[in-house]
């Protein structure tokens, strides 16, 4: 089983005719994702990579029954692309684009309130339910179907965790990158709720990083309402305050958002915290034994 996406998910690619859109659509098709349509304004009517291209997301939803979208459009147009997908009723919107202005994302989040769409990202590697559906840019072969849910703010660090989980003989029910920006769609708590209600997810790995207080809020939720084992890792234990460490969201501001604070909150909530990024897989094994 899985959360949010599975082998019935029908995906539309926004920005399918661009370089990145083309490259990653091919990878998704190879993985077995059901890519049913593409959208590029003013290129409607053509076929690209074997799927019909539409001018608007609404048309793609109407004609092909798309219920999820992957966004590969430049930062200046990405916020609008998210809102277009939500307006068209797309259930799961995955925004890969990195570099969307924060004030645009604040407007997007306000727009999404009261709508049924779930946004993943932006600045995310995407979401994958191994063996069923991959919407994003992560390397498919490192994943294996299984019972561990993964939630992460990072891209390549998620791959690291996935690989360790797979090498330990476990697989993933679903792995989700929530994105490295200050304002993102689904966060830890919403995803933890989905994993809690998924009977085939036995444990969750939660990978956080410095900046903000999302991990602390998640810890509070886990303590109160999450019965399954959780393994946590926080990147940035050695990061200095006041410096943006790559991700726009990864900055320790005003003494808040340090790795030490986050690790302590998680530990207090009963989370198995891995100190070293190389010990995520082994910590999971211990948590499950």
């Amino acid at each position, binding site marked *: 089983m899985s959360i949010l996406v599975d082998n019935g998910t029908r995906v539309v690619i926004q920005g399918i005719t661009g370089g990145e859109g083309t490259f990653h659509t091919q990878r998704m098709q190879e993985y077995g994702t059901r890519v049913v349509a593409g959208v590029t304004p003013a290129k409607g009517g053509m076929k690209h990579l074997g799927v019909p291209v539409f001018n608007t997301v609404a048309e793609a939803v109407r004609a092909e029954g798309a219920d999820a979208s992957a966004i590969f459009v430049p930062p200046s147009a990405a916020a609008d692309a998210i809102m277009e997908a939500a307006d068209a009723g797309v259930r799961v919107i995955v925004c890969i684009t990195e570099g969307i*202005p924060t004030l645009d994302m604040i407007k997007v989040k*306000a727009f999404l309130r009261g709508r049924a769409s779930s946004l993943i990202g932006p600045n995310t590697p995407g979401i994958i339910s191994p063996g069923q559906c991959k919407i994003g*840019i992560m390397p498919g072969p490192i994943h294996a179907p299984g019972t561990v849910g993964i939630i992460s703010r990072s891209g390549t660090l998620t791959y690291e965790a996935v690989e360790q989980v797979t090498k330990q003989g476990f697989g993933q029910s679903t792995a989700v990158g929530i994105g490295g920006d200050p304002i993102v769609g689904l966060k830890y708590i919403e995803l933890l709720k989905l994993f809690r209600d998924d009977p085939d997810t036995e444990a969750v790995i939660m990978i956080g990083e410095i900046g903000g207080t999302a991990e602390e809020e998640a810890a509070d939720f886990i303590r109160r309402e999450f019965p399954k084992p959780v393994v946590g890792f926080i990147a940035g234990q050695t990061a200095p305050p006041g410096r943006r460490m790559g991700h726009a969201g990864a900055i320790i501001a005003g003494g808040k958002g340090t790795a030490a604070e986050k690790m302590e909150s998680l530990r207090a909530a009963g989370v198995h915290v891995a100190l070293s990024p190389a010990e995520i897989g082994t910590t999971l094994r211990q948590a499950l034994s």
Partner: protein
Amino acid sequence: MKIHEYQAKRILGTYGVRIPRGDIAETPEAARAVAEGIGSPVVLKAQVHAGGRGKGGGIRLADTPQEAERRAREMIGMTLVTHQTGAEGKTVRKLLVEEALAADRELYLGVVVDRASEAAVIMASTEGGVEIEKVAAERPELIFKEYVPPWNGLLGFQARKLAFRLGLRGETYKQGLKFIAGLYRAFEGADASLAEINPLVITRAGDVVALDAKINIDDNALFRHPDILAMRDLGEESPLEVEASKYNLNYVKLDGNVGCMVNGAGLAMATMDIIKYAGGRPANFLDVGGGVTEDAVANAFRILVSDKDVKAALINIFGGIVRCDLIANGVVKAAREMRTKIPVVVRLEGTNVDLGKKILAESGLAFQAADGMKEAAEKVVAAVN
């Protein structure tokens, strides 16, 4: 992106926020000329990207234009050390020369993006002139907040609430409303992540003026603000960071001796962590990003090893979008050109990993291959010690 106080004030001025009369001076003579133009006592403020300037001697008063010139002569070229500059301090190149204002009250007004509520929040406090974090910790009841509705912008009643809570009355109240509205519009118009007036002063004449100003700009929004991008002061950044930014590399200099080069910000932070865990100290954060080219990798490697503090380097790549063979080619190219002598440990994983390993092995260069992050960190730390 950080900008200087004088640049922040110029932005604020265009949104109708009242700022002290003044101008920038890069020479003592210019400082004198600005002071003459003002025609009353002035304050000279060192323009560096750091707070706490007053305590380090970076803010000084002058009663006459002659004194302004003398003070400027002492200040320009000085190394200013504050709690935010680090021990090496910052060289003062520019002064902001402004009219000295007699303040009746010092208040605080700031706008910041609040992640938890996913909105911009405007904060006001009667406790200006001190660190707002300190007020928040000790007297949180003295901080007043209004969350700005994203699609509407700051609403009239919100500005009124804040102005009344700050105790503004009469003509000062009217000026305060204009000030608050202007500050929010400047925040939004400049795509700021922070716009802070501390202190905001009420002068003896009852005027509402931004005595100090700090604006940080959202890097992600700079593509639509070429005018603000032009305000970037490369002299305030570390030379290696400036060099890295030319190739869209995320590089932050740290104080250790193990250089690292990684793809992805989270993995880069985790790599720094595991170096420390293995007993070493990371010399930098360096994320080569997702859409990296062979040339950018070569430049990343060059920047990494040109840091004199770096005694060994760790390259940690988990190929997803980035192919390991591309990384390997870039590293080999740069290592050949630079005739690198320091030990380099390479850990490759993911897309085209075998090809990448083959390129490194056949290069004839002394790379140390490692399996997994743990082994890589232990090898590089052993190489330093």
